[in-house]
């Protein structure tokens, strides 16, 4: 896997290898946004998950995706802190925490989640994302998988002595 810059040395994203390991996928943000704006994918997702009102579900997620696009545009254009979008993954987390696990959501009604590691103030690395289908991440296979991914990413940074923006830059340059 590798880490690429989305904008302004503030928002980064992981890029994972394809299943056969022969090449890289598109970066996590683009991959998620491609899925969340794909009507066919969303409709199929609703069916597989036995959603009662399929078309309403699809329309809702399409709108959620638009809201994320608008927020990313606003954050990048106005150079606003990313903390406007990301917040701790665990609601009971308070104070400063090194390599805090974070979730991005536009509002309380947002049905989409982007997960990230907070490297430092206003510096995040996206690890993945999912459609929120259950209260607890462990209760749905997709969010459970994202939980595994974000924890692995956190461990990966810890193993490489990344704990703030400087150590992150140092690690990143070594990676390159």
């Amino acid at each position, binding site marked *: 896997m*590798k*880490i*690429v*810059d*989305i*904008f302004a*040395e503030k928002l980064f*994203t992981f890029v994972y290898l394809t299943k056969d390991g022969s090449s890289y996928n598109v*970066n996590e*943000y*683009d991959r998620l*946004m491609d899925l969340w*704006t*794909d*009507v*066919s*994918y969303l*409709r199929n997702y609703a069916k597989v998950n036995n959603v009662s009102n399929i*078309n309403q579900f*699809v*329309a809702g997620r*399409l709108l959620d995706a*638009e809201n994320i*696009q*608008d927020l*990313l*545009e606003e954050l*990048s254009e106005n150079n606003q802190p990313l903390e406007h979008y990301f917040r701790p993954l665990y609601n009971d987390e308070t104070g400063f925490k090194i390599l805090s696990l974070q979730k991005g959501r536009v509002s309380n009604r947002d049905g989409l989640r982007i997960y990230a590691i907070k490297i430092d103030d206003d510096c995040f690395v996206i690890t993945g994302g999912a459609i929120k289908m259950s209260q607890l991440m462990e209760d749905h296979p997709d969010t459970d998988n994202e939980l595994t991914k974000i924890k692995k990413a956190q461990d990966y940074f810890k193993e490489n002595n990344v704990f703030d923006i*400087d150590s992150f*830059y*140092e690690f*990143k*340059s070594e990676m*390159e």
Partner: protein
Amino acid sequence: MTTKKEIFKSLVSKEKTNTISKNKERIVNRAMLRESQQIALKVLTKLDEPGWSQVRLAKEMKVTPQQITKIVKGTENLTIETQIKLQEILDIPILATYYERIMDELFATIKFEESEKYTAPDYEPAPSDSNFMLPKKEFKMEYDRQTPEYYYYPKTA
């Protein structure tokens, strides 16, 4: 002296994504994308009906199944030709002509026929001593030149 941060910046620029420009593009094209998504939703809903499949739709539209896959993603800027094909083959409303045709057919079937003539109901005239206000009695006056006399007719409703 070059700092590690500067080294990083020079390296990361090579890896810069086009995510922001793609995001902008989605916002600029939002009106088109929303229409495309609505069409995709209608197409997929119709394809859920028995007998329909993406393969059959591809055959009837004379396009490849890959093109149908693109249409149902809801990200394509569909030509009017494609929209007409989808509307006619699947019988789903996409263009305004769908409803205009329905309205035309509806008006063509509506006929105005002459109804039965009105017959005034029988009624009992109110007694003369009643307190009800009676309508003012009106007369029509005509002059007959031959008899040279005036005739009076009570006006009837």
